[in-house]
């Protein structure tokens, strides 16, 4: 293979090179081309559940995070049709949970919100469910606000695969599917979750929150306040915050 030209596929008319074994989403992001996504995290095996990264290849819609790139594929991503589909998916997520951004301490660092901004979602369009989802404040250092869960399973994957603790799981089926805490009492305080865990740093929305840190970075100066997610996701955004200071949450990528 040495010296051989890298294989390519075309995305919206632009050539995207890829390494054999890469998915369309991985190759696109590596080439600096943003594809909206929520349940995908570069450090975890693709999950293919949120469907936000849906693209059209040769007339078929597929999740680009689980589809291997193939030489010569014609991939449609930012077409009006696919963007409309993505907007609808985001709107579904908003109405199925309780996403009150003005009172959420993750606002400005939230991927769901940032993706919605990127797609130009001006309203939820559908009638909100307003589900009742009590919070879990039992843990001394961590607050769980289930109202914002989008079922991406990143915390489940991180806790099982990296932390080896299996703190989180999904329960129920269909519209009743929800995140649970893996303890007999159902309370986070009765698990081995610690603030250093990987599971603390992967929530794309505002479910898993460190206590007493909520507003260390003021609203308006946060990651996606400063840079659109399409720049952050492909590493084009330089400073994380306007102040230039590193995140007070240490290695956390999604924190503040």
């Amino acid at each position: 293979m040495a010296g051989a030209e890298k294989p390519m596929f075309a995305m919206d008319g632009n050539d995207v090179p890829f390494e054999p074994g890469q998915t369309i989403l991985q190759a696109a992001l590596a080439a600096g081309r943003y594809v909206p996504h929520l349940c995908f995290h570069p450090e975890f095996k693709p999950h293919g559940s949120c469907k936000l990264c849906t693209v059209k290849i040769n007339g078929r819609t597929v999740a680009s995070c689980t589809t291997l790139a193939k030489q010569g594929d014609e991939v449609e991503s930012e077409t009006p049709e696919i963007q409309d589909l993505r907007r609808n998916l985001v709107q579904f997520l908003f109405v199925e949970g309780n996403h009150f951004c003005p009172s959420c301490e993750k606002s400005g660092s939230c991927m769901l919100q940032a993706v919605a901004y990127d797609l130009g979602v001006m309203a939820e369009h559908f009638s909100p469910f307003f589900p009742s989802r009590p919070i879990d404040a039992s843990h001394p250092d961590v607050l769980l606000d289930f109202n914002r869960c989008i079922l991406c399973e990143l915390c489940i994957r991180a806790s099982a695969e990296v932390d080896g603790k299996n703190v989180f799981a999904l329960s129920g089926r269909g519209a009743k599917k929800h995140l649970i805490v893996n303890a007999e009492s159902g309370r986070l305080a009765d698990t081995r979750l610690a603030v250093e865990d990987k599971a603390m740093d992967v929530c794309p929305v505002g479910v898993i929150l460190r206590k007493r840190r909520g507003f260390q970075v003021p609203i308006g100066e946060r990651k996606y306040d400063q840079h659109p997610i399409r720049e952050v996701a492909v590493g084009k955004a330089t400073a994380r915050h306007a102040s230039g200071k590193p995140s007070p949450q240490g290695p956390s990528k999604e924190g503040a």
Partner: protein
Amino acid sequence: MASEKKKLRVATTSLAGCFGCHMSLLDIDERLLELLKLVEFDRSPLTDIKHCGPCDLGIIEGGLCNAENVHVLREFRKSCKVLVAMGACAVNGGLPAQRNHLDIRDCLQTVYMTGTGIRRGFIPNDPELPLPLDRVHPLHDVVKIDYFLPGCPPPADAIWHFLNDLLAGRTPTLGHGLIHYD
């Protein structure tokens, strides 16, 4: 009225909101004078006109938390050619909708009867008081809304940009920095 171009007639109101969006509208500052070259206000907290006449544009802040809110919203829908939901509460219920997972009777009892420092309390029941709804609703749950302007409140620049698009006959869009849900 003598100006060569007829001004658009605009009505505004605040339903289950905090008037923060109206304050943000006033925050467009001296651009208000530019706006007033293009529009004249009908029913609005700025004019104190009580009922809406025929209008080109209705701008509504706040969601629906009681029967009067629904009544006013329907009056706006009847009177205005184009209806805009302005701000988080109008768009998705916002802060007032955070009571939606609570029972309304429990809410009223806690606030008026059993809360700290209340003696001989009772739930207000004057017939002039509009009845609260069991849940707070966004505007589009009840009437057709033509355009949505998110934000809590939407920044003044977003309101200005949005209105300029609308008055020029374009579908309003907000880019990064102007579109905010918080």
